[in-house]
C-alpha cells in the first residue's frame, strides 16, 4: 500500500516543488517516526582459569585478528603519594623495558615484524595490558603479552629514558592553555584525594626500579584480574592457550587502600597566561556513577552541554559566536563522585561575560524545569543510540570486564535505561537543586587578565595559581 502511494506521488514530484524547495512527496523530517531498534545483545562466554583469572570470550571469525585486554586494579590513585606520576612511568616501562627472555629491543623487534601490538595503559583505577595480532601469529604474540604482564624486566636504562621523557613532558605541560586548564580543574575538583595530585620533577626523579617492581608485585595477581578477548578463535582452544600462557602466575591477596572523597574548595582559580582566548571550566562533584540521582543528572547535563542543541552550545556559540568549543557533562565517577561541569574556550575580552552566561545556564536548570521537548530530545538520543553499544565485540567484552571489576550490578545499564525512560522535568530540577550549586563551584580560568572585560574578583573569590 505504502509502496503504491509513494510511486504515485513521485510521478508528480519531479514537476512540483512545494514551498521550501523540496518535492511534494517528501515528508516533514520532524514528523518521520521510526521504531526504536533493539540492540542484538552479545553475551561473552565466561570462564575462570585455574589460577583465578576471569576470561570473557567472544568468537568473531569474520576477520583474521585476535584482540585481548586484561584489567588489574592498579590505577594511578594507588601509587605512593610522594611518587605522583609513577603509574604512567610504570606502564611505559612495563611495555618497553623487556619481558621474560627478551630484551627491550627484542620485544619491539619481534612485535613490529609481526605487525602486532602489545600495549600497557593506566588510568585512575586500572592498568590494562592489551594485544592485537593476526590470528596466524597468535601463539607468539600471546607469549610476549604474557611475559609483559607477568615477567616485565623494567630495564634500568628504559626506566631512565621514560623518566627523562616525563620530565620533558612536564617542561612542556604549560604550552597549551587547554592542557593547563584541564590539569588545574582536575586538581581542584579532586582536592584531598589522590586523583587530584599532580606530578612534579621531584616526584618523577624519585622513581626507582624497585618502585616499579613493588607496584607490580602488589597488584598483578591473577585472581583479581579480568580479561576480555575477541576475534578469530575457538573458545575452548583459546581457554587452553590462555591456561598455558598464564601458567606460573601466582595467586595472591591484594588489599586496596580506601580514600575519603575529594573535598574541593569553591573559588575562582586563575592562571595567568599570554593568550587571546580564555579557557574556562566550572562545576562541582555530585554522585558516583549509577548511584541514585546519576541518571537524572546525566540527562540534565546533556540539556546543559551535550552537542549542538544543548544550552551552552546554543547560548554561547550559536547565538553569540563567543566560542568554538563549549559544552558540559556529568562525568562517571567510580569509587568517588563524578562531577557536573561546563567548559568554554572564549575570546579573552569576553571572559567575564562568558563565565556569567555559563553560570546562568546552570542556575536556570535549578530554577526552572526543562521543557518536555528538551528532555525528550536527549532521552531519545540515549535510547536510540543504544544500538551503538554493540558495534564492536571487543568493546562489549571490555565493558563487561570493567563492569565486573567495578562491582556494578550486571543489569546496571538496564536500570539506567529504565530511569532515563521514567525521568520527568521535575526530576531533573530536583537533582540539579540537590547536587549542583553554582554558588559553590570550582571555577578555573586560564587567560590574560590584562585583557579581561571585568576583573574576576567581581565574580567571586579569586585564587591566583602560578604556572609551574
Amino acid at each position, binding site marked *: 500500500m505504502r509502496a503504491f502511494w509513494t510511486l504515485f506521488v513521485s510521478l508528480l514530484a519531479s514537476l512540483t516543488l512545494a514551498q521550501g524547495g523540496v518535492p511534494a512527496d517528501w515528508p516533514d523530517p520532524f514528523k518521520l517516526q521510526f521504531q526504536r531498534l533493539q540492540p542484538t545483545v552479545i553475551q561473552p562466554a565466561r570462564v575462570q582459569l585455574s589460577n583465578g583469572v576471569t576470561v570473557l570470550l567472544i568468537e568473531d571469525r569474520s576477520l583474521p585478528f585476535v584482540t585481548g585486554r586484561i584489567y588489574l586494579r592498579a590505577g594511578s590513585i594507588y601509587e605512593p603519594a610522594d611518587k605522583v606520576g609513577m603509574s604512567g612511568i610504570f606502564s611505559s616501562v612495563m611495555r618497553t623495558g623487556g619481558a621474560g627472555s627478551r630484551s627491550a629491543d627484542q620485544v619491539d623487534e619481534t612485535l613490529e615484524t609481526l605487525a602486532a601490538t602489545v600495549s600497557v595503559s593506566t588510568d585512575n583505577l586500572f592498568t590494562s595490558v592489551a594485544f592485537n595480532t593476526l590470528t596466524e601469529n597468535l601463539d607468539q604474540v600471546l607469549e610476549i603479552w604474557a611475559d609483559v604482564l607477568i615477567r616485565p624486566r623494567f630495564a634500568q636504562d628504559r626506566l631512565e629514558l621514560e623518566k627523562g621523557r616525563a620530565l620533558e613532558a612536564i617542561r612542556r605541560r604549560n604550552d597549551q592553555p587547554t592542557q593547563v586548564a584541564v590539569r588545574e580543574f582536575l586538581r581542584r575538583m579532586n582536592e584531598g584525594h589522590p586523583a587530584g595530585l599532580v606530578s612534579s620533577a621531584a616526584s618523577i626523579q624519585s622513581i626507582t626500579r624497585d618502585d616499579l617492581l613493588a607496584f607490580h608485585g602488589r597488584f598483578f595477581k591473577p585472581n583479581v584480574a579480568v580479561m576480555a578477548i575477541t576475534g578469530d578463535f575457538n573458545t575452548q582452544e583459546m581457554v587452553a592457550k590462555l591456561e598455558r600462557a598464564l601458567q606460573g602466575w601466582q595467586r595472591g591477596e591484594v588489599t586496596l587502600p580506601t580514600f575519603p572523597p575529594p573535598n574541593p574548595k569553591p573559588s575562582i582559580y586563575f592562571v595567568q597566561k599570554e593568550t587571546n582566548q580564555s579557557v574556562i571550566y566550572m562545576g562541582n562533584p555530585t554522585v558516583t556513577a549509577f548511584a541514585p540521582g546519576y541518571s537524572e543528572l546525566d540527562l540534565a547535563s546533556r540539556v546543559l552541554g551535550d552537542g549542538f542543541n544543548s544550552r551552552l552550545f546554543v547560548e554561547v556559540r*550559536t547565538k553569540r559566536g*563567543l566560542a568554538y568549543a563549549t559544552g558540559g557533562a556529568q562525568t562517571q565517577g567510580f569509587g568517588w563522585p563524578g562531577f557536573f561541569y561546563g567548559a568554554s574556550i572564549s575570546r579573552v575580552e569576553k571572559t567575564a561575560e562568558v563565565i556569567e552566561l555559563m553560570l546562568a545556564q546552570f542556575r536556570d536548570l535549578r530554577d526552572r524545569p526543562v521543557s518536555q521537548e528538551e528532555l525528550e530530545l536527549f532521552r531519545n538520543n540515549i535510547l536510540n543510540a543504544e544500538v551503538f553499544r554493540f558495534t564492536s565485540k571487543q568493546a562489549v567484552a571490555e565493558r563487561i570486564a570493567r563492569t565486573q571489576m567495578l562491582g556494578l550490578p550486571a543489569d546496571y545499564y538496564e536500570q539506567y535505561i529504565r530511569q532515563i525512560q521514567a525521568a520527568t522535568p521535575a526530576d531533573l530540577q530536583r537533582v540539579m537543586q540537590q547536587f549542583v550549586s553554582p554558588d559553590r563551584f570550582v571555577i578555573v580560568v586560564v587567560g590574560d587578565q590584562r585583557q579581561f572585560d571585568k576583573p574576576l574578583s567581581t565574580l567571586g573569590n579569586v585564587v591566583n595559581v602560578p604556572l609551574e
Partner: protein
Amino acid sequence: MRTRLWLVVFLLLLLPGAMAQQLREQIRKYTLDNGLRVLMVPDKTAPVIHFNLMFDVGGVDEAPGLGGIAHMVEHMAFKGTPTIGSLDWPKEKAALEAIDKARADLDRAIASRASQEEIQRLTVAFNQAREEAKKLALPNAIDQLFTNNGEQGLNASTGYDRTDYRVSLPSNRLELYLRVYADVMLNAVFRSFYEEADVVLEERRQRNENDPNGALSEAFLRAAFQVHPYGRPLIGSREEIQGYRVDKAMEFWKTHYHPNRAVLVMVGDVEPERDIQMVRKYMGAIPRGPSRPADTIPAEPPQTAERRVSIEYNAQPSVLIGFRKPTYPNREAYVMDMIDSILTEGRTSRLFRRLVIQEQAALSVSASSASPGFRYANMFTISAQPRAPRTTQDLERIIYEELERLKNEPVMAQELQRVRNQTRAAYLRVLQGGPGLAQTLAFYELFFGGYQRIFEEEAIYNAITAEEIQQAARKYFTPQNRTVATLVTRGGSR
C-alpha cells in the same frame, strides 16, 4: 629465531588476502543520473549505518582573499534549509535579506569612510536585523533531528582537497538521513552566518594562534608554498574570516557542492538493492551541477634553495622539516610512504630509535609522507620536539644524518619486510569497517580513480625495492628542496 620470523612473515602476506577479496565482492557501487556515486558495504554486526558524504572541494579551490571559505561553508551546511529550521520561511527569508542589505550598507559606509556616528548607527541596524532573523529560526535543527534519532559522530571536516560530512545512525533512519542531506544539497540556508563567522574566528584562535603546533605549522606552510594554495592557512586569516559575506559563501557553495562532485558511502546494516531505491528518490532529486572547473590552481615553482623560518612563542621548542615531492599516483609518492614507515613507524623505526631511545635527544618524532594535501605535489614532513638541554639544531643534525644513511645504504631486506607488514596490517585494520572504512572508500572513489584502487595498492608497496627507496631519498632529501620551521621559546611558557 630469524628463520622462524621469516616463516611467519611469509604467512602474513598470504593469509588475509581472502578478507580483502571478500570485502571487495561485497561492495556495491551505483551511479545516479545526476552523477552522484553511491557505495554500499553490508556489515550486519549491528543495526547501524555509518554515512560519509564527501565532495572533491576544499581549501585549494578558494579564490585569493577568500581563504577558509570552504571551511566556513562546511559549518554553514549544518544550518538547515527552509523546511529544516525555519519557523516561518517567507518571513525568515525576508529577514535574512534584510541582514544582507544591512551588512552591505554598513560595508559601503566603512569603505567610503563615513562618520563614526553613521557607522555606529548602521552597526546597530545590522545587529538588530540579525536578532530579528534569529527569532524566526530554530537553531541547529539538523543536529536536533539526528540527536533525536540516536546519532553518533555527527561531524564534518574540510581539508585542502576535500570536504566530508559524517554521521552514524540506527539503520532504520536511512530515510531521515537522505531527507536531510538531499534537502541541504538542494536548498541550504546560510542562517546565523555572521555569528558563525565569529565562531570560526574562535576556532582559528584555538587551533592556529593559541596552539604552538598550529602556529608553527601555519608559518611552515607559508614558507614552503609561496604560490600554491597549500601555503595558505586552511581556516583563513583573521582578516579573511572577518570579511566573509553571505553572497560570496553562497556563490562558493553553488559552484562546487553538487552530486556529480560527491560520493556517498554507507557502511553497515544496508541491503543495497532495496536501499538504493530510497537513495534514488531523495538524492536523485538533486540536479546535476557544473563539473569541476578547469584547474587554474597555480603550480608551485621549483624550489632552488633551502627556506628557513622561525617563530617566537611562549612554548617549548620544536622543529618542522619538509621536503617537496610528487603526489599519487606517481610511484615515488608510494616510495615516500615506505620511507615514512622506515623512519617513524613504531619503536624500531630509525628516527624513533635514534632520536628518542639511543641519543635521548627528542621527546618524540613523527612524519607524514603527504602533507598538507594529496591532490597536488606536496611535502614529506618530519616533526620533532627536543629534550632539554638538546636543541632543535641537534635534532636537525641527527635527522639529516639518518636521511644521508637512507641515501648511502640500501635498506635491509628484513627492515623492508617489516614495513610492508606494518603497511598491510594498517590497511587490514581500516578494512574492518565502521566510520573509518566509509571515509577511506569515499576518498579512494573520489580521488584515486575508483575505490578498487585500495585493493591494488598493496601490490605497489610490495614491489617497491630498496634501490627505489635509495633513489627517492637522494632525489628529494636535499638541502635546496627543504623548508625548516623552528619554534623558538620566548619567555618560557608564560
